[in-house]
């Protein structure tokens, strides 16, 4: 959370995260480029530039596959949330690695010619009507363009400037980028049948990404079906038993029509606010009360439970909801108050702290 825009708001966790990433990438490249040729005679025959383009290209693919697995893994098992926290840096590093791949391709396959390398890249293979021999480089260019746009806008300034829904929709194009990379591989090195191990790794990666997303979607669909029941008095809806609400924690209440409300028990009182975090739509109801504030499980954005406002100097505001207690049940009025509206928390009898 930051009140001003800085290139990177470093903290200890981000430094550790980035260090681990850099070590993983450095180890991969070192083994691929230096160790493999020493161990495998066939790798030793390959030109250094081609070995490097393969190392950077495959590394970028693996990184992107891992990045795409983090989201569903964090949905299925919240212990993965620390990996989600700094995923942006993972994405930016992936873009840098993919750029290095493109650099070596341009500097080797499309160099040493009077034709400009960029012109040669786009014009030297025009077999568009064929699957075998299709200019697979085009899919690589598309993927790299998407990665560059996403890396350039991977900052809270752009998130705020574009608004979270637009920014989020734009960053969903990462899936189009991943598809383009898979096509780039399928119509290029995989069709050349030069490396069986690559085919297995690509297949495993794609199945993992798709499978985890499917599992998370199934879980999400089951949760979405669990719509809150209407209470006896309209328009109130039931948010469950008070006794089921743990102190310091929240519960996501789904309203007919797709909205979600986060109901929190804090200091012996109950408040309700919009479930979608103003930052990246993170599920606040799965967060915790930290320092008296509702804290998003994704990136730690905080809001006061009683008025949905981020504590000063932050300015984010969320809609709040009226709450009442009846026969041991928490009831919520699903009509949202304007963002930042103060609503007196309901005190749980005998639990005021």
């Amino acid at each position, binding site marked *: 959370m930051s009140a001003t825009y800085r290139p990177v708001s470093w903290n200890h966790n981000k430094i550790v995260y980035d260090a681990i990433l850099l070590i993983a990438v450095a180890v991969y490249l070192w083994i691929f480029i230096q160790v493999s040729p020493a161990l495998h005679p066939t790798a030793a025959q390959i030109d250094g530039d081609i070995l490097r383009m393969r190392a950077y290209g495959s590394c970028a693919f693996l990184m992107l596959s891992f990045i795409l697995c983090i989201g569903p893994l964090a949905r299925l098992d919240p*212990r993965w949330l620390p990996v989600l926290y700094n995923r942006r840096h993972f994405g930016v590093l992936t873009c840098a690695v993919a750029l290095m791949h493109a650099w070596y391709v341009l500097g080797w396959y499309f160099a040493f010619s009077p034709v400009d390398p960029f012109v040669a890249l786009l014009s030297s293979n025009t077999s568009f009507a064929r699957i075998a*021999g299709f200019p697979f480089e085009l899919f690589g260019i598309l993927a790299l363009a998407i990665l560059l746009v996403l890396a350039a806008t991977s900052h809270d300034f752009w998130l705020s400037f574009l608004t979270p829904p637009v920014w989020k929709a734009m960053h969903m194009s990462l899936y189009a980028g991943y598809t383009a990379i898979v096509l780039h591989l399928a119509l290029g090195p995989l069709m050349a049948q030069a490396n069986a191990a690559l085919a297995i790794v690509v297949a495993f990666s794609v199945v993992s990404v798709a499978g985890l997303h499917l599992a998370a979607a199934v879980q999400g669909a089951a949760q979405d079906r669990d719509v809150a029941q209407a209470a006896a008095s309209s328009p109130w809806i039931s948010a469950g038993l008070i006794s089921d609400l743990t102190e310091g924690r929240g519960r996501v209440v789904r309203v007919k029509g797709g909205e979600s409300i986060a109901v929190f028990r804090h200091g012996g009182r109950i408040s309700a606010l919009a479930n979608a975090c103003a930052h990246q739509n993170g599920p606040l109801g799965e967060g915790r009360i930290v320092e008296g504030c509702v804290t998003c499980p994704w990136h730690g954005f905080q809001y006061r439970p009683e008025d949905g406002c981020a504590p000063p100097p932050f300015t984010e505001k969320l809609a709040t909801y009226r709450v009442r207690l009846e026969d041991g049940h928490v009831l919520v009025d699903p009509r949202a108050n304007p963002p930042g509206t103060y609503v007196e928390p309901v005190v749980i009898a005998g639990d005021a*702290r």
Partner: protein
Amino acid sequence: MMPEAKDQSFFVGFDNNVPRPLAGFALRIAALLIGGFAMLALVLGGGGEDTGPGIYGDEIIMQGELHAKPYPFLRVAADRDHPAGRAILLAGDGKVGAEGDAKPFDGQQVVARGAALKRGTLDMMVVGSGGFSMPAKLPGAAVPAQAPVSRGTWRLSGEICDGKCLGGAMRPGSGLAHKACANLCISGGQPPVFASTGTVDGTSFFLLADKNGGPVPDAVYDLVALPVDLEGDVERVDNMLILKVDWAKLARR
């Protein structure tokens, strides 16, 4: 208000004191990531294709009769290793063929200076700008020109490559991933070579030409780097085979 007890299952990004259970789990993920990447690098780095024995060698100087069509080649005197004579296919610097430099010397006895390229029976030389000369006194005797010998009509399976990369300028210098580079080389005038799965007269490499013995047409670019069947007349020039293909007929098939 009572102070909040820290939730050991909840991670707050800006809080440097990560709960121990989560820190332990994150460390296991980090180890998995680093270890997994190391293992994959070993598997993928070592799983490449065998690029074969293509060699980009040292500088050599050869005397012979220069021919510019369909692509430049130099006919040099027979020696112990090449009793039937020896034709060396010529490539230019980078991705530009040697035709521009060779044309003024077409049919002449010249001295060529360049780097040797060798892949099996594919005998090549990379001649840079100014690599051909006609000294007043040739270092060796003039090569008596032998007429090309027809070896009949053949149908062969294989891959169309650019001769320079295939010969050893790139490793690997063939295959689909290399297609655009091969097209760029051939369009720049480097000699197209057909690497056949079978052999004729002990060689599986054929310099490609059109049916009249001229350079290949642009239609060839769609077929480069793919498994293809080519049919045409094979002509032997010393130890080099030229496959003359009716490309228009091939495109209609």
